[in-house]
């Protein structure tokens, strides 16, 4: 019953090799130490939070990842970002107010994966923002106190 073919395994293998390379691991470490942000390299189809389990993961995002309903909201926003990322980087703000950026990685003319940076709250949240987030959480069936 499956429709279009999945992303070729060769792209995924290439990204996995890049992700494990010394060059990328050094870059990731220096970037994260300098900025306090998590950095990840991900294949075209990746249906988890890009930074889940990383040292610099945003704890709020880590909590959202625990619940499939809230995780789905994050993943949907990230999928929209990927769908709109052409040859240039693209940034989105998720319904919980955090921004995520994808930078395309190309092999020749073909995009094979993305550098992902994000889980950033770019400003101090106002009351209006927290109310919106509470509403979104409640819509996902999460009980919000306070």
């Amino acid at each position, binding site marked *: 019953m*499956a429709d279009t073919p999945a992303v070729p395994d060769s792209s995924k293998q290439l990204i996995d090799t890049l992700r494990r390379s010394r060059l990328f691991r050094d870059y990731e470490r220096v970037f994260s130490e300098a900025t306090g942000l998590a950095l990840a390299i991900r294949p075209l189809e990746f*249906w988890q939070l890009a930074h889940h389990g990383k040292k610099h993961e945003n704890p709020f995002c880590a909590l959202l990842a625990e619940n499939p309903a809230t995780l789905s909201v994050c*993943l949907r926003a990230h999928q929209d970002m990927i769908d709109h990322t052409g040859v240039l980087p693209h940034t989105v703000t998720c319904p919980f107010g955090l921004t995520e950026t994808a930078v395309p990685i190309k092999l020749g003319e073909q995009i094979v994966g993305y550098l992902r940076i994000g889980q950033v709250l770019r400003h101090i949240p106002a009351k209006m923002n927290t109310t919106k987030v509470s509403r979104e959480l409640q819509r996902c069936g999460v009980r919000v106190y306070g």
Partner: protein
Amino acid sequence: MKAEIEIEPAIEPMRTRVALHPFLAGMNRSQVALLTDCAMAVHFEKGQIIFREGEMANRFYLIETGKVVLESSERLGNPVIIDTIGRGNLLGWSWMFPPYTWRLTARAVEPTSAIFFYGTILREYCERDCSLRYELFKRMAPVMIKRMQAARLKMLGIQSGVEVLKPSPVVDLSEYD
């Protein structure tokens, strides 16, 4: 599969719809591939019966848009609405446990789009892949508890006479027969 199920053209790849559905979010790549292998987009019109109590349970649905009610048997009189299921929710878990028959009747009360999963194939995949079985159980258990609690509250209401048994909204089902 029944003739009443209308197949809907896919808007985005099925594996993306499966991977991002609120019920399944967080599944890994191989689990998504197995689920997608037995998934299909379907649409139900308002009033359409999706499955009937007592019939063989060989499938389940993940609702994408619309609303479905779960009703108890008409044998005791008018059907009693046990629960209402909307966007992002699971419809049907009897396919997972013997005797594989539906415990309730499901009826669309709004035009409803859903992802259909062929349960018989998925049961085989679950036998072979423990992690898939675990992930499905983990997600289904709270739904089962919620449905059983909803049924219990209805029964308590009926017993105490607090619950007024209202007949379900009248819908002409003849066009779906």
